[in-house]
């Protein structure tokens, strides 16, 4: 891959980090803030994986190898959060 592409990716990562830092100063409602910040982080992760780890040039099977645990981990985290709220039975 061309050096210029890597430099572009690097610039993008720095810029999105700056965006994250600016967002927290903006007094946004909590839900929106969490959504924005975590989606930005997710985007950065995907970009690093695609370009720096050059998954976009590899067989799909390699990406699947790491997508499976992401799904499994999402189940683990999601369901464990769901289980926090205790259930109070009443008539």
């Amino acid at each position, binding site marked *: 891959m061309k050096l210029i592409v890597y430099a572009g990716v690097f610039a993008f990562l720095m810029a999105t980090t700056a965006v994250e830092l600016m967002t927290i100063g903006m007094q946004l409602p909590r839900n929106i803030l969490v959504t924005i910040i975590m989606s930005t982080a997710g985007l950065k992760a995907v970009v690093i994986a695609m370009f720096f780890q050059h998954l976009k040039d590899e067989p799909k099977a390699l990406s699947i190898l790491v997508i499976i645990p992401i799904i499994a981990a999402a189940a683990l985290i999601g369901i464990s959060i769901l289980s926090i709220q*205790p*259930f*109070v*039975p*009443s*008539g």
Partner: protein
Amino acid sequence: MPDLGNNILVSNTYETFTGLFGTFSTLAIIVGAVVLGLMTYLILRYRDKGTSTQEPEDAPTLGKLPAERGKVKTIAVSLTLSTTILVFLVFGTFGALDNILTPPKDAIDIKVTAFQWGWKFAYPNGYEETKELRVPVGKAVRLIVVSEDVFHNFGIYDYKIKIDAIKGRTNHIWFEAKQPGEFTIQCYELCGIGHAFMKAKLVAMEPGAFNAWYSTSGA
């Protein structure tokens, strides 16, 4: 059949459990008998009796990949049968679950606190004790179960009911005693060296006797 006690209806939970357990057991025994019977039959029928040297046509041979075998139909029939049985059992389960999770509105609330190694029972009138849990026959009791230290499990085995007692969580379970008598409360989660001895007595009393006791105890 597993021993389900003396077959006297001691509580509503006993009734719920034995009903469902009976359904499960009946189906389990039928399915188990059919499968194991079939296996035994096939082994006896097709064992090598040494009467002929003839091998089956598709017998495994070194240097040859084994032939593909097996019909989707057989698999599908077996899957359909077991799915039907399982769906039936899931519906039975969910019906019983609603019953287990829904106490009547007028239930008496008793707080149960588990600790290493014993139980503390606190009644609405402020009365507390650790040796016995007294409840009236014919009235629903809702237990509010917490733990002071480690993970315990509150269980009354004659009533076929239990619930985890976990620090930081408040759990609930309810039952209605149907017969007066004394039963054992025991811990069902390993909680240290006193685990086996973490017991208390459940005393189901006639409503009159219970009321007399309750009004004189406590605050």
